[in-house]
């Protein structure tokens, strides 16, 4: 058996690994990172949620403003509190209103959480059944969406960091306001 054929399985494995690496690299290069979420470009789903502002419901019509941030969070979620200053800075920098939607939360606990965190939400809805969450492709809290003319233009799934804002949210805003 020649030396080459003795190591044939190893060569074949190395070749396949190289092919896979090239394919994966090409797939990620083809699409900018911030455009990869399936929800990008989709219309904001219609919804009607109880809100923290008394009797008034929060509906998709309330979010028909030109550009805004929609933040899914919960009072029981530590990461939501951790991302709060970054979310607040991002909203202030671009002068965008922030709407909050609390996922599977207790309104009483949420009330105290909002006071404690320093409420930055223009309005806060309560997604108790999680139906809107699924319509938005939510995987967990926190998640942040940028909405422009009732269309989702940016999504970040996870706790916001400065890098996440720079790589996922700001590029979309620059596309609509070059």
């Amino acid at each position, binding site marked *: 058996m020649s030396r080459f054929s003795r190591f044939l*399985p190893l060569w074949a494995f190395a070749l396949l690994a190289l092919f*896979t690496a090239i394919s994966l690299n090409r797939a990620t290069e083809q699409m900018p990172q911030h455009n990869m979420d399936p*929800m990008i470009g989709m219309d904001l789903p219609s919804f009607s949620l109880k809100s923290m502002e008394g009797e008034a419901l929060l509906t998709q019509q309330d979010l028909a403003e030109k550009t805004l941030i929609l933040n899914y969070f919960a009072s*029981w979620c530590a990461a939501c509190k951790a991302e709060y200053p970054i979310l607040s800075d991002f909203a202030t920098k671009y002068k965008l209103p922030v709407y909050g939607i609390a996922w599977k939360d207790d309104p009483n606990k949420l009330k105290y959480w909002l006071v404690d965190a320093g409420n930055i939400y223009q309005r806060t809805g309560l997604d108790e059944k999680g139906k809107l*969450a699924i319509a938005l492709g939510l995987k967990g809290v926190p998640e942040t969406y940028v909405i422009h003319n009732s269309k989702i233009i940016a999504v970040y799934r996870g706790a916001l960091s400065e890098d996440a804002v720079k790589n996922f949210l700001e590029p979309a805003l620059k596309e609509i306001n070059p």
Partner: protein
Amino acid sequence: MMRPFILFACLFSFAGPLSAQERLPETPLTDKVQETKAKHLFTQLKCEVCQGQSIADSNAALAQDMRELIRQKVSSGESDVMILTYFSTRYGDSILMTPPLAPRTWVLWLAPVLFVSFGFFLIFRMFRVQK
């Protein structure tokens, strides 16, 4: 002396997340055919927050909400394809337990076949050399 306090503090720190995971019992559909159809669909969708589990086997809040939504959609007469498409347009094809055969998934489908064929080729070759 400090031990009971530390233990209590540790248990208390889990209380918040647990309260968020409180589950209500699920109500199956009264129509048995529809319930069977819904249960079959549960096995075709991956739990997004679990490791390799379908939503049929998961206790996660999101999986429970998905099951409830599927039951609603089944009872309102939506077809299997419509329901699966609803989820895959929002979560991507990665939510499907069986990824579709498309140009971008060819490697995924063909790689095992290639590996097995290559294995057989090597075995065949080894036996031939030994002869």
